[in-house]
C-alpha cells in the first residue's frame, strides 16, 4: 500500500558521495512533487568517518522534521549497519553491499572506541554477534526487515565493462548504487532521476548516462522490490519548488535584501552561505545589476566583523556569517557597532560548544552569547528562524531592522537548519520590502549622532559635502570624543532606549508566532529549529486528544516579554514546556528574566543531533501526563 511518508537513512564514509546521493534523490523526489527534508550528520573529518543523511519524504505536505524509525536504511559500508541498527522500523528495508556481510565491528577502524564499545554492548544485550551478517539476520528475524543485498563490486564491473572509467574513480559510482536502490524501492520515475542527474552534473552528459545505466542494473536486480516503499500520489501542487539548505536560503534572502558586502572566515556550519553568495555575487539580468556583492574571505573573524562594519559605514548593506568560535572573536567589534549605531548583520550559526566542541553538530546553546556578549550596554536585535522559509525572509528583515533602528542585528540560526536540505515553496519576493530607515544626504554641519531623535539621520561616508566622525569612545553629536558626564548620560541613554522603540515598533507576528490549538491545554515554547519537531509533536498529540500550542519565538532580543507572558499564562504553569537543543533550556531563563515567567518544564537535547518528532512527542506526553519536569533526549547516532 502506498505510504504518506517515508523515512530514509543513507549512510557511508565521509567523502564517498553520500551528499550527491542525497541531492539526486531529493531533486528527483521534488520533481515528482513530493516534499522532502533531509538532515545531514557528519564528523569533523574530510575522508572516512561515518556520515549519514536522514530524510523524510512526504506525499501530503512538506515535512518539517525528521523522525525515527525509518523505512529504508541504505548503506554504503558496514559501519552504517553497525551504527543504525536501531533506526530501522519494523518491516523496513536494508540496502547493503553483500561483500561486507562478513565484516566484524572490531575490524572497522573509523568507528571511535567509545562508540565501538557501546555498540558491542548493545549487540551483546541483543544476543547478536559483532558481524554484519548477524545484524542483518537479527533485523530480518526480529524486526521483519527486508534485506536488499547488492553486489556493489559486480555492478561496478558491469559499468566498467561498458564505459571508459578510470578505475580509481570507480568508487564514486557507489553513491549511484544507493540512489538507484532507493529510487527503485520508492518507484521513482526514470525521467525524474534523469532530470535530477542533469542538474547535479551540469553539462557532464556522460555522468548522467552512466548513472542511468547503473540504475538499470540495480533495477534489474530488484525487480520484485520495485515500489515496495512507494508513496501516495503527491497532494501538493507547486509548479516550482526550491531545493536548498538553510545556508542557501539565507544567502538568497541576503541577496534579495540588498546585501553588498559579505565577509567571512571559513567555519562550519556558516561558510557554505558565503560560497552560495559568492556564486551569485553579481548577475546582470536584462541589463539590471543584481549586485555586486563583495565577498571577502578575511584573515580572521575580527577582520570579518570590522570590515563589515566599515562597509556599512560606507552605506552598503553589509553582513558576515560565522559560528560560535568566530562569534566570540567578533564581540569587541559588535560592541563598537553598538556604540556607533551601525547597521551590520551577523548571521550566527550555532554548533556544538563549548570551544571547538562538536564542529559539525548542532545546538542552540549559544543563546546567551548572542544576547549578552559584549561589554557595556547597547541596543542590539537578535532574531531567529524556525525553518528555511523563515530564514529567507528573516535574512531580508535583518537588514531592515538594522537600518531602521541603526543597531547591529544578529540572525541566530543553527547547524540543523543550515545544513539540512528542504523542499520549500519559492519565496514571494514581490511581497518583500526594503526599508532603509532614516537616511540623509548629510551636508555641511552634519551631526551623525544628532540627539534630537533616538534614531539620527544617517549619512554614508562619502556623501557629498559631508564630513562625519565615528569613534568607539563616548562621543558628542558630531562623533568626537567627549567625557562630559551630561553628554554621557544623554548619548548612552539614546542608544539604549532604542530597545523600547524596537519592542513597540516590531509587529507581534514578527516577535512570535503561535501554532496549534486555539484553546490549548498545554503550551510548548521554543525557538529556531525546534519548530518543525514541535509542530509535528503537538499535531500527533492532538490526534491523541491533547490540545497543545507551540510558541515560536522569533524576536529573541529585545525579548517580547509582554506577549510571551500573555500567552503563557493561558495555561497552568506546570503545563508550559520549553524545548531546546541545549542542556539548560536557556529560553526558560530568558523568559524568567525578561517576561517574569518561570517555565518549569523542559525538554533538552545536547548530543548534537536534532530533536526528532517522535522523541519529542513522547517527551511531551510524559511531561503533560505524568508531571515529569525535565526530559533529556538523546536519540540519534
Amino acid at each position, binding site marked *: 500500500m502506498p505510504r504518506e511518508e517515508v523515512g530514509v537513512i543513507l549512510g557511508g564514509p565521509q567523502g564517498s558521495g553520500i551528499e550527491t546521493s542525497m541531492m539526486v534523490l531529493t531533486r528527483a523526489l521534488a520533481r515528482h512533487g513530493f516534499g522532502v527534508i533531509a538532515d545531514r550528520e557528519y564528523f569533523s573529518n574530510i575522508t572516512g568517518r561515518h556520515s549519514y543523511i536522514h530524510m523524510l519524504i512526504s506525499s501530503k505536505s512538506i515535512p518539517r522534521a525528521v523522525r525515527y524509525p525509518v523505512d529504508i536504511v541504505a548503506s554504503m559500508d558496514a559501519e552504517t549497519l553497525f551504527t543504525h541498527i536501531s533506526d530501522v522500523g519494523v518491516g523496513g528495508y536494508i540496502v547493503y553491499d553483500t561483500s561486507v556481510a562478513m565484516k566484524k565491528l572490531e575490524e572497522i577502524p573509523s568507528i571511535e572506541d567509545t562508540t565501538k564499545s557501546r555498540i558491542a554492548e548493545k549487540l551483546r544485550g541483543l544476543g547478536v554477534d559483532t558481524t554484519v551478517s548477524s545484524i542483518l539476520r537479527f533485523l530480518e528475524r526480529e524486526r521483519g526487515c527486508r534485506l536488499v543485498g547488492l553486489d556493489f563490486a559486480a555492478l561496478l564491473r558491469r559499468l566498467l565493462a561498458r564505459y571508459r572509467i578510470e578505475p580509481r574513480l570507480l568508487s564514486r559510482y557507489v553513491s549511484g548504487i544507493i540512489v538507484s536502490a532507493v529510487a527503485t524501492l520508492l518507484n521513482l520515475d526514470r525521467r525524474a532521476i534523469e532530470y535530477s542527474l542533469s542538474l547535479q552534473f551540469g553539462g557532464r552528459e556522460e555522468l548522467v548516462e552512466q548513472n542511468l545505466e547503473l540504475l538499470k542494473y540495480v533495477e534489474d536486480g530488484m525487480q520484485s522490490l520495485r515500489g515496495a516503499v512507494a508513496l501516495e500520489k503527491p497532494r501538493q501542487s507547486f509548479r516550482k519548488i526550491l*531545493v536548498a539548505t538553510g545556508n542557501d536560503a539565507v544567502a538568497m534572502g541576503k541577496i534579495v535584501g540588498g546585501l553588498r558586502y559579505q565577509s567571512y572566515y571559513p567555519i562550519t556550519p556558516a561558510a557554505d552561505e558565503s560560497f552560495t553568495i559568492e556564486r551569485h555575487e553579481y548577475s546582470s539580468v536584462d541589463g539590471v545589476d543584481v549586485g555586486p556583492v563583495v565577498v571577502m574571505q578575511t584573515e580572521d573573524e575580527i577582520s570579518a566583523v*570590522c570590515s563589515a562594519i566599515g562597509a556599512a559605514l*560606507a552605506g552598503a548593506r553589509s553582513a558576515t556569517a560565522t559560528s560560535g568560535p568566530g562569534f566570540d572573536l567578533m564581540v569587541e567589534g559588535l560592541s563598537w557597532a553598538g556604540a556607533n549605531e551601525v547597521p551590520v548583520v551577523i548571521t550566527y550559526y550555532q554548533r556544538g560548544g563549548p570551544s571547538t566542541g562538536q564542529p559539525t553538530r548542532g545546538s542552540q546553546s549559544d543563546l546567551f552569547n548572542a544576547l549578552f556578549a559584549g561589554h557595556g550596554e547597547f541596543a542590539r536585535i537578535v532574531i531567529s528562524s524556525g525553518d528555511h522559509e523563515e530564514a529567507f525572509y528573516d535574512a531580508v528583515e535583518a537588514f531592515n531592522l538594522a537600518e531602521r533602528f541603526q543597531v547591529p542585528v544578529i540572525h541566530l540560526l543553527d547547524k540543523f537548519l543550515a545544513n539540512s536540505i528542504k523542499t520549500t515553496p519559492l519565496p514571494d519576493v514581490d511581497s*518583500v520590502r526594503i526599508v532603509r530607515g532614516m537616511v540623509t544626504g548629510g551636508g555641511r554641519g552634519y551631526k551623525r549622532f544628532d540627539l534630537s531623535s533616538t534614531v539620527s539621520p544617517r549619512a554614508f561616508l562619502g556623501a557629498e559635502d559631508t564630513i562625519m566622525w565615528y569613534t568607539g569612545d563616548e562621543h558628542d553629536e558630531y562623533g568626537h570624543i567627549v567625557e562630559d558626564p551630561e553628554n554621557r548620560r544623554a548619548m548612552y541613554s539614546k542608544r539604549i532606549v532604542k530597545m523600547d522603540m524596537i519592542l513597540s515598533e516590531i509587529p507581534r507576528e514578527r516577535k512570535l508566532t503561535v501554532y496549534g490549538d486555539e484553546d490549548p491545554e498545554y503550551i510548548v515554547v521554543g525557538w529556531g529549529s525546534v519548530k518543525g519537531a514541535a509542530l509535528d509533536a503537538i499535531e500527533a498529540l492532538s490526534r491523541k486528544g491533547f490540545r497543545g500550542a507551540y510558541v515560536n519565538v522569533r524576536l529573541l532580543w529585545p525579548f517580547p516579554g509582554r506577549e510571551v507572558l500573555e500567552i503563557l499564562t493561558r495555561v497552568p504553569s506546570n503545563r508550559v514546556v520549553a524545548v531546546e537543543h541545549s542542556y539548560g533550556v536557556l529560553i526558560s531563563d530568558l523568559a524568567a528574566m525578561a517576561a517574569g515567567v518561570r517555565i518549569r518544564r523542559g525538554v533538552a537535547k545536547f548530543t548534537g543531533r536534532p530533536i526528532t518528532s517522535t522523541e519529542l512527542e513522547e517527551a511531551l506526553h510524559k511531561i503533560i501526563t505524568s508531571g515529569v519536569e525535565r526530559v533529556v533526549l538523546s536519540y540519534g547516532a
Partner: protein
Amino acid sequence: MEHRSYKTDLWVDWCPGCGNFGILTAVIRAFEELSLDPSKTVIVSGIGCSGKTPHFVNVNGVHTLHGRAIPFAMGIKLANPQLTVVVHGGDGDLLGIGAGHFVALGRRNIDVTVIFHNNGVYGLTKGQASPTLPLNTKTKALAKPNIQQAVNPVALALSAGYTFVARGYAFDGEHLKNLIKRAILHKGAAFIDVLQPCITFNDVYTAEYYRKRVYKLEDEGSWNPVVERPGDRSSKLLKAIERSFEWGDRIPIGVFYEDAHTTTLEERFSQRLKVYPAVAPSNSRIAESDGRPVVDRRRFEEVFREFIVDVEGV
C-alpha cells in the same frame, strides 16, 4: 566641496612636543596639496595617542578599535572604492595586537595608505614597551629593560607584500609630507614607518636622537627604489630589505620600495564583479523606489535557478 580648513578646531590633547604634531601637520599639508575632497577622504585609526588623529583633521574620521583600523579601512574602501583611505595607527596598534591584519593587508594590496606612528611605546596606556622597542632598552617608564626583541616594520611590510614602503621622520615635515603624498597617489597598499618621538615616555628615541642619525635615501644618487619591470621585484625587494636593516648611527628615511605593477585587490574584484568599481556596494541600487527589491520574482528565478526544481508530478 568648497574649500575649508583641513584642521578641526578641537584642542589637540597630545603632550606638548609630541612627534604626533609633526605627523598631523604633514598629513594636513599633504591633503591640502593634493586638494583631497574632505567628503571623499577617510582617516581610519586604531586606539592610542596616534588613534586620536582623525578627530583633528577635517575629513571623515573613523576611530576604530585597538589594532583593527586596517580591517575597518578594508571594508570602507571595498564598499566605496572612490574614497581615499588613510590609516593611522600606533606601533602597538599595528604591530602588536594588529600584526595579523598588518600582514593580511600586504597580501591584498588594497589601495590604502598606512601611516605608522613609531614611538617605541604604548603611549596612551603610559609607556609600556611597544613591538618596535629594541631588546634590553630601558626607557624611563619601564621598571625593567625590555625583554622582547624589536620587530623591523619596514622589513615586515616588505615581506608581507606592501607595494609602497617608506620611512619618514615626524619632525622632518616637508619630507614626510612628500612621502605621504606619494603614498596616497600610489595605487596599492602603501606603508610609511614614521619615527615619532614620544616626549613623555620614550627618553631613548628622542628628537635629539633622531635628528643626529636620520639621513635621506634619495640623497644617495644611486638609490632607486622603484620597480621598473615586474621582473625586478625580487632584486629591488632584497635591496630594500637590506636597507631596512640599517639602524644605529645612521637611519635611512625615504622610499624603500615602490612597485606599481601589482594589481590591487579592487582591480582583481573588478574581474569578477564586471561592473565594479564603477558600480560598487555603496552606490548600487538594491530597491525600487517603492521599496520592492531589485530582485523581483522573475530575476529571482533567473539568478537562483540552481536551486529551483520544476515540478512535473510525473
